[in-house]
């Protein structure tokens, strides 16, 4: 009796975790898709940096649904704390003027794809509807494949560190040299100009 109760509780726990992962997946995928669309539509560089931030946060959420906890944290630290801030600095230092899209001038027949927001939205909606319809049709024909993996919720950072110090030691050292070179190069390139 007790065993059955414990089993029931365990399956409930598993279902709860799975549905939580599904919700997390849907939320991060929506965040990523919406900010990708906004990135394509905006012409303001400042707004584009914000949408880039949202898209990268969405990718971090996707890493979490893939059980890549270390990568999700690294993504947030490096991109949100580093790259996007650098981009904002560059935007502010270069004036941040709005830029026209290239397609209006050089490829007028492609302009509706990029130019008018309403046509773009309509095309996007139609393609999404087609994608969903095709996916569900494919799904009907597909056999039910249940992916049974011994799901491991253990943190990955320890095994990642061990791999980094054994199999990938050379790449690790190479990347550190690359980072040093990039640091020196960036400081050298962006130094104030001599008159």
């Amino acid at each position: 009796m007790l065993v059955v109760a414990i089993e029931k509780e365990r399956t409930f726990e598993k279902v709860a975790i799975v549905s939580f992962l599904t919700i997390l997946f849907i939320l991060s995928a929506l965040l990523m898709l919406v900010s990708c669309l906004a990135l394509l539509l905006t012409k303001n560089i400042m707004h584009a940096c914000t949408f880039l931030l949202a898209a990268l946060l969405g990718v971090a959420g996707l890493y979490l649904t893939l059980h890549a906890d270390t990568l999700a944290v690294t993504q947030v630290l490096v991109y949100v704390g580093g790259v996007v801030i650098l981009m904002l600095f560059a935007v502010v230092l270069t004036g941040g003027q709005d830029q026209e899209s290239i397609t209006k001038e050089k490829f007028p027949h492609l302009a509706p794809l990029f130019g008018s927001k309403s046509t773009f939205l309509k095309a996007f909606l139609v393609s999404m509807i087609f994608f969903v319809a095709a996916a569900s049709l494919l799904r009907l024909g597909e056999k039910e494949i249940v992916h049974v993996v011994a799901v491991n919720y253990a943190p990955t950072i320890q095994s990642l560190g061990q791999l980094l110090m054994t199999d990938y030691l050379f790449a690790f050292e190479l990347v550190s040299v690359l980072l040093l070179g990039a640091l020196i190069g960036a400081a050298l390139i962006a130094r104030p100009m001599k008159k």
Partner: protein
Amino acid sequence: MVSLSSFLFLSFVLFLTGLMLVLGRKSIIFVLIGLELILNAAALNFVAYSRFVTEKLDGHLFALFIIVIAAAEAAVALALAIRFYQLKETTHLDELSELKH
């Protein structure tokens, strides 16, 4: 619901957005944003395959290296953008036609 193909679709959308930004914009900073998205799509593919196919951690390490390289690339490219602005007072890519001022 959450399968390999859904992640592949998401990374495809990410890659396509990056490609459209790289090809369609004239501002150097928009092009850099597009490059970041393309690199992220590659990293997402690595992690998705390592979760659903190989079930080892090697894909995570590749994604880690991609993130580091993207950071280095962003630092150098933004320094170049600032230098370019110092020389030409604009970030328009059509003005970027000579190596030396």
